[in-house]
């Protein structure tokens, strides 16, 4: 099972990638996926400020991840 993971803005620079197919574990949630993929690049406080979207919808960290999902990691926004 895998998910298409999207990295934006500062996360893209930190991780050196804009998008990647990542393995999804059974009973995975987006929060667990976020921790696995981002924890090496930022402190826990920074991790908490990153929200997740699944298939274009903002979700809580406990939201499950299914095979083929698009998971976007969204750092703090700064439009306007």
């Amino acid at each position, binding site marked *: 099972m895998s998910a298409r993971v999207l990295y934006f803005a500062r996360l893209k620079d930190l991780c050196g990638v804009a998008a990647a197919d990542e393995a999804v574990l059974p009973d995975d949630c987006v929060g667990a996926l976020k921790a696995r993929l981002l924890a090496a690049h930022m402190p826990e406080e920074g991790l908490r400020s990153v929200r997740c979207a699944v298939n274009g919808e903002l979700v809580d960290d406990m939201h499950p991840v299914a095979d083929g999902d698009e998971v976007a990691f969204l750092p703090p*926004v700064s*439009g306007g």
Partner: protein
Amino acid sequence: MSVATEGIVEGPIDAGALRSRLLGPGLGGVAVFEGRVRHSEAGQPIQGLHYEHYPRMAAAAMAQVLAEAIRRWPGGRVLAQQRVGWVPVGEIALWVGCAYAHRAEAFAACQWVIDEVKQAVPVWKASQVPGSAQRAWAPGQVIRRVGG
């Protein structure tokens, strides 16, 4: 009569065209906000800002913001455009216009839409560090749902 029009655009925002779409008989209070790129960030001179967005979510979030504005302040017209890509100093990055019968609703709706766009639409801006290829991302706010 309630009208909400939204957009994420690449390339210059046509403020005159947007403003003309706001006007209407009975709409006596017109509030327009133009967020333009300043010539410096964090004390450093810049030539512009780079705006990135998540296309799948950003247009939908803009539409939700404006629909919610019309729900909260019915009877007017609300338009907004967020520009993405490279925006040079002095040009408009965010345009918001609200037209209502009276100024109170126009100002209130305009302020609310600006705040929501900054907190609920997945857009990020960065300045280029002078003399470097590195981008400096603005700190920003944790994204939340529209009206949340």
